[in-house]
């Protein structure tokens, strides 16, 4: 792959305190770091700005916003699971109008780069959200959360159907500035994530964000009922990291030049490096923010260190580096067993 050309190996003896330029160009968004927040895990940046300077990370990806205010689901909305958690928030939020007035304007004034995540219940809602964003100042990119049920199609989740996913992305593309970077956020709960990626890219997505949570559930041993009021919830955190890395790998393999934001259980700079080597241009930190509110900045620093130690001069050099060279095993992979 052409993105991942590097000739020099790790430089032994590199000073552990050396710095490098972490500047990242994500589909035209120029950022000082490839480390972003994950949608729904950073609200609209204000709270995290207490713990680190949010203008120093790549971008704030805001909680998915809908057209109207939304109360979300009843509590309990979360359960801790081994190395992860389930959530079932139900996209509680203020609605696009108040979001623009109250949240986006603050982010803009603060000088943070912002990727606005949007969610709808119909293709038309996505279209309207994109149209509202078109005139709003301070939008550096749009992330389209398609892990929502389509109320016009028996609640079938957009992200689980390549055609429905494409319809959403097409509607968002048509209603956005043509230069606006648009990322389709993909669900891992599908048989063929590369197929969904292909479909949304054809429909006009500039890039993809992978992955959203996995559908999971916990039964409470005391009540002997599902623990979450919403019954099922989204599984996130380090537990899902191997699934997320695999999804990034597969998509990068199929699309050597597609901008990819990778996420799923990133806890350290080495975890972030794993995603970048697998093919992510940038990474989002989600659940681990709950564990460590300073983590996006810490991960930025640890990643910088890890890249320097390995002799990379830019972040871009490391993107997809794990795909380098011929790979005989990989060739026969499809004809061998993918799972025991």
């Amino acid at each position, binding site marked *: 792959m052409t993105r991942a050309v590097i000739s020099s190996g790790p430089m032994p003896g590199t000073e552990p305190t050396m710095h490098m330029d972490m500047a990242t160009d994500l589909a035209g968004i120029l950022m000082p770091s490839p480390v972003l927040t994950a949608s729904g895990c950073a609200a609209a940046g204000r709270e995290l700005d207490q*713990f680190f300077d949010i203008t120093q990370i790549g971008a704030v990806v805001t909680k998915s916003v809908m057209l109207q205010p939304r*109360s979300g689901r009843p*509590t309990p909305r979360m359960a*801790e699971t081994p*190395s992860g958690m389930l959530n079932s928030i139900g996209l*509680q*939020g203020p609605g696009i109008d108040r979001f623009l007035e109250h949240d986006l304007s603050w982010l803009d004034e603060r000088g943070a780069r912002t990727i606005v995540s949007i969610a709808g219940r119909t293709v038309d809602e996505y279209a309207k959200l994109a149209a509202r964003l078109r005139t709003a100042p301070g939008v550096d990119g749009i992330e389209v959360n398609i892990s929502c049920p389509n109320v016009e199609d028996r609640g079938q989740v957009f992200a689980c159907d390549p055609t429905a996913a494409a319809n959403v992305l097409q509607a968002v593309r048509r209603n956005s500035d043509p230069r606006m970077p648009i990322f389709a956020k993909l669900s891992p709960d599908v048989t063929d994530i590369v197929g969904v990626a292909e479909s949304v890219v054809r429909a006009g997505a500039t890039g993809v964000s992978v992955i959203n949570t996995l559908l999971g559930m916990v039964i409470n041993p005391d009540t002997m009922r599902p623990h979450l009021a919403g019954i099922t919830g989204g599984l996130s955190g380090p537990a899902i990291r191997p699934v997320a890395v695999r999804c990034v790998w597969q998509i990068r393999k199929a699309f050597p030049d597609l901008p990819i934001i990778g996420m799923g259980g990133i806890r350290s700079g080495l975890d972030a490096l794993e995603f970048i080597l697998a093919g992510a241009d940038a990474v989002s930190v989600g659940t681990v923010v*709950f564990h460590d*509110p300073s983590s996006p900045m810490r991960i930025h620093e640890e990643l910088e260190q890890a890249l320097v130690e390995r002799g990379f001069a830019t972040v871009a050099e490391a993107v997809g580096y794990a795909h380098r060279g011929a790979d005989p095993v990989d060739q026969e992979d499809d004809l061998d067993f993918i799972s025991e």
Partner: protein
Amino acid sequence: MVPVQVKGEVLDMRRVGAYHVLSLTAPGITDITRPGHFVTLGIGGEESSMVLRRAFAIHQVQSRGVYGGTLDVVIGVHGKGTRWLSERRRHDVIDIVGPLGRPFVLPKERVACVLIGGGYGSAPLFMLAEQLRERGCRVDVVVGASTEEKLFGVLDLKRLASTLTITTDDGSLGEHGRVTDVLPALMDRVDAGVVYACGPMGMLQAVAELATERRTYSQCAVEEAMACGIGVCMTCVVPVIGEDGVTRMLRSCVEGPVFRGDRVRWADVGTIPPDTLGAPEQGGH
């Protein structure tokens, strides 16, 4: 008040009845702590499978001294995270974020205040009682629990309060019954201007309803499961009626944990009341 994230060192861990009192160094946190604030603690060390922090009301702070600020929390062992915490020993290091949340609001006037604590819910009332007394308020305290060993801090509270009333469900200490059995008479006797409460949801509901019936201002510190504690995740919401009469699902970690007792829709906690802003039934979505 801006919360900070610091590494705290365990100075002491001691058993008090059914609880563990953990003393930690907490530089930068103690100076800005007010009664009702809480902290969250990282659990299980670096390779822990427990990814979520645990929340604890700040019980006491000591701002000066060689450690540059220390705080105490009172831990009831409930599940695996609190069990891990209870096994910490002197010199262990724990990641602390705090102070968090909205603290108790203190009255401007010298009104009589009744403080009610259920179980470890009495922990944040110590600082509150002290500060109310500094302002010249009369302070009466009621503590209740299922049984004697689940009461926390009875001796110290006796010292801090004009009167201390104790109730236990099993009658093992104090009155046989619940805090709300003794509350009305006490409120009348002292002509209570404000009621403060911290404890299980059921108790808070009963106390708040009692206070509201009697048109007494009440402040209740709620306890909802929290994933982040800092306002970014939306797991910790309760239905609260705003100044504008509209019910919203508010985050108890940043808009609480202390709420006005007459504003929380206690009976609807764990649901989305149909008239909540943005509720599914309303507005067709």
